């Protein structure tokens, strides 16, 4: 009896040490994923809702505005708080960040704040209202105060609302942004439309290639495979600029079409949507071919032969026997291409027109050009959520367990 207990204990101990060793082996990967994946995404989601600059620069104003209903101009005490905050913020160097944040919400806020901070503000709080209105009549606009109130933090819906073309007014109601500035819903729609079309084009073009690669004997298949892989290994920028050379007005494609007498004048094939479709399909094609190929290699030709020998015509044999077995590869390829296409930036920027930019273009624009990281994060967050919803739908319809990510 004691012997078996001791054995059990020893067994358990050995088991545990093995588990610990396994955990230790996995640990570096877990840490790596946390640092490079979970943390940046968390940071991005946080930036999309964080709002600290104004509360730091104008603490008294933000406190005084709490509870203001946004219907009429705030009371004189609020003006006095702002008159006290402005010079202090200017000296502390916190004013520029606050001015930038408020300017996102309402154009002209930068000038207004700097001008007011430089202006002659009375020490006597009673005269603050007149003094501020004398410096700039804009302080008589309820929406200006509403913008300060909304930016009081610590959390804000401003960036996320902007990312879906909505705007909150001083009295708290949510409206559409002015028609000429509401673009993001359109751009998200455009992003998904381009991605879906590119995925379909990749599937139509990639399927026969993968099939050919899978059925050819190795001697012929390998050189063909290299033709697929070579562009795959070439830099994205090189392939994109190569398309510029091919598709331009005096490029090979247009010149050949004219020489063949198919057209008299060159067709515009680049700097528009056609260029985006062509270049993106080409760049993403290997991501469709490779998963398809790996699945097709595993399908025994005897199934098709069996179907044929049982009297199925070629089309029926293909549709009812071959195609269902390819589904995991089709699923994997489509998912890969679609998700990669969603984030495309440089290809549409170089071969597309101004009306063909995808959402990544705007994320890059706000990240690097205007340093509006809040809006960049909000756009990223909306894209992430939309993609997750789409993937969940896909899972419901097709199922990830049927996907072969080999």
């Amino acid at each position, binding site marked *: 009896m004691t012997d078996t207990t001791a054995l059990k204990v020893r067994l358990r101990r050995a088991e545990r040490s093995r588990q610990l060793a396994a955990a230790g082996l996995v640990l570096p990967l877990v840490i790596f994923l946390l640092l490079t994946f979970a943390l940046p995404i968390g940071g991005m989601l946080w930036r999309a809702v964080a709002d600290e600059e104004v509360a730091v620069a104008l603490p008294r104003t933000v406190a005084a505005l709490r509870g203001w209903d946004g219907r009429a101009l705030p009371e004189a005490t609020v003006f006095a708080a702002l008159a006290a905050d402005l010079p202090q913020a200017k000296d502390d*160097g916190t*004013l*520029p*960040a606050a001015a930038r944040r408020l*300017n*996102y919400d309402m*154009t*002209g806020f*930068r*000038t207004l704040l*700097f001008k007011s901070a430089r202006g002659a503000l009375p020490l006597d709080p009673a005269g603050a209202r007149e003094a501020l209105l004398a410096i700039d009549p804009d302080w008589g606009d309820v929406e200006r105060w509403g913008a300060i109130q909304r930016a009081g933090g610590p959390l804000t819906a401003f960036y996320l609302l902007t990312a879906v073309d909505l705007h909150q007014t001083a009295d708290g109601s949510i409206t559409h942004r002015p*028609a*000429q*500035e*509401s*673009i993001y819903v*359109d*751009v998200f729609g*455009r992003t998904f439309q381009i991605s879906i079309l590119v995925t379909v084009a990749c599937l139509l073009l990639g399927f026969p290639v993968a099939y050919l690669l899978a059925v050819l004997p190795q001697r012929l298949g390998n050189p063909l495979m290299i033709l697929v892989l070579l562009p795959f290994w070439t830099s994205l920028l090189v392939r994109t600029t190569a398309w*510029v050379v091919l598709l*331009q*007005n*005096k*490029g090979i494609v247009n010149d050949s079409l004219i020489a063949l007498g198919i057209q008299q004048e060159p067709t515009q094939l680049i*700097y528009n949507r056609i260029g985006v479709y062509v270049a993106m399909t080409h760049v993403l094609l290997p991501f469709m071919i490779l998963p398809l190929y790996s699945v097709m290699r595993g399908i025994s030709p005897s199934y098709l032969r069996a179907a044929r020998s049982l009297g199925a015509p070629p089309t029926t044999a293909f549709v009812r026997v071959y195609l269902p077995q390819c589904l995991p590869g089709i699923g994997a390829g489509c998912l890969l291409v679609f998700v990669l296409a969603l984030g495309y930036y440089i290809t549409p*920027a*170089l071969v597309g*027109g*101004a*009306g063909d*930019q995808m959402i990544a273009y*705007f994320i890059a*624009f*706000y990240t*690097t*050009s*205007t*340093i*509006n990281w809040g*809006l960049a994060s909000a756009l990223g967050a909306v894209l992430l959520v939309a993609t997750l919803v789409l993937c969940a739908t896909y899972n419901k319809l097709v199922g990830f367990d049927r996907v072969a990510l080999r």
Partner: protein
Amino acid sequence: MKKLVTKRSLLLAAVTLAGGLAMAGVATARDLTVVSWGGAYQDAQKAAYFTPFVEQTKIPMHDESWDGGIGVLRAKVQGGAANWDVVQVESDELQLGCEEGLYEKIDWTKVGGKDAYLPAAVSDCGVGAILYNFILAYDGDKLKKGPASWADFFDLKTFPGKRALRKGPKTNLEIALLADGVPLKDVYSVLKTDAGVDRAFAKLDAIKSEMIWWEAGAQPPQLLASGEVAMTSAYNGRISAANKKDAKNFKIVWNESLYTLDSWVILKGTENLDQAYTFLNFVGEAKNQKVLPEYISYGVTSKAASGEIKAELLPDLPTNPKNLENATQIDTVFWLENLDRLTERFNKWAAK
């Protein structure tokens, strides 16, 4: 076994500590570090400025390059580990960083006085380094009688063919207003009104069907060379370089061009303040500035230098008084305030 580990870790800690102290010792004697934009431009600066500076002043310095971004400077100055002293920045970084207190206020008596420089090169926090223009360019071999103004750029009847402008609203709205007859000096006061913005977009509508939008500075010369467009907006340096390197006959229309400046700034709290001023004074002197255009087609900012530059270089230079005659500076503050809003509007307009 355990003891050994402890001993070893103790030893390690001691070595690290000593190393850290030694590093700190080195850091107090850090050389003057100058940061610029890299590439062909920094090579030109090396030849014209950096090497002669070290030879003549015996001040040890080394140069690094960066790709811009106010965030980098913010991190350097506010993070308290600034290892850069003098940085060349673009106009919006100059404005933002000056407001945020990232730069030393320039003591102009130490760099030759404000009067020695072009008025546009003088600001609170920066000394202008180079001037470059946003110009109208066309291929002289294909258009014998070329355009002379932005109004001609919008004239599709006299000059048929496609047009290219930079993607986005910046510079294009100015160009549209100029083409619509707004005088150069009034462009930004008109653009500050909603009616002015509407007017600019309405003017752009007229050539929208013939437009190609470029993204990178290397694209305009390529678009001209391939015959894709008849005219384009471009940076003057790219066009001159294409003429020189690829033996092209591209023409530059300096009339109604828009210019902007890059400036030298001194990062706040630098330990090499005196050396930094010596450096800025050196690169501000006419006798040194006149060398730079021999290496690259940018305008320099010293008033006296313009007169000393070799005559054959002058036609290509933004600071040639003839080229500067009817040009205006891009309004940094206007674009800092309006770029987000107008970019959204531009994209809405472009997708229509």
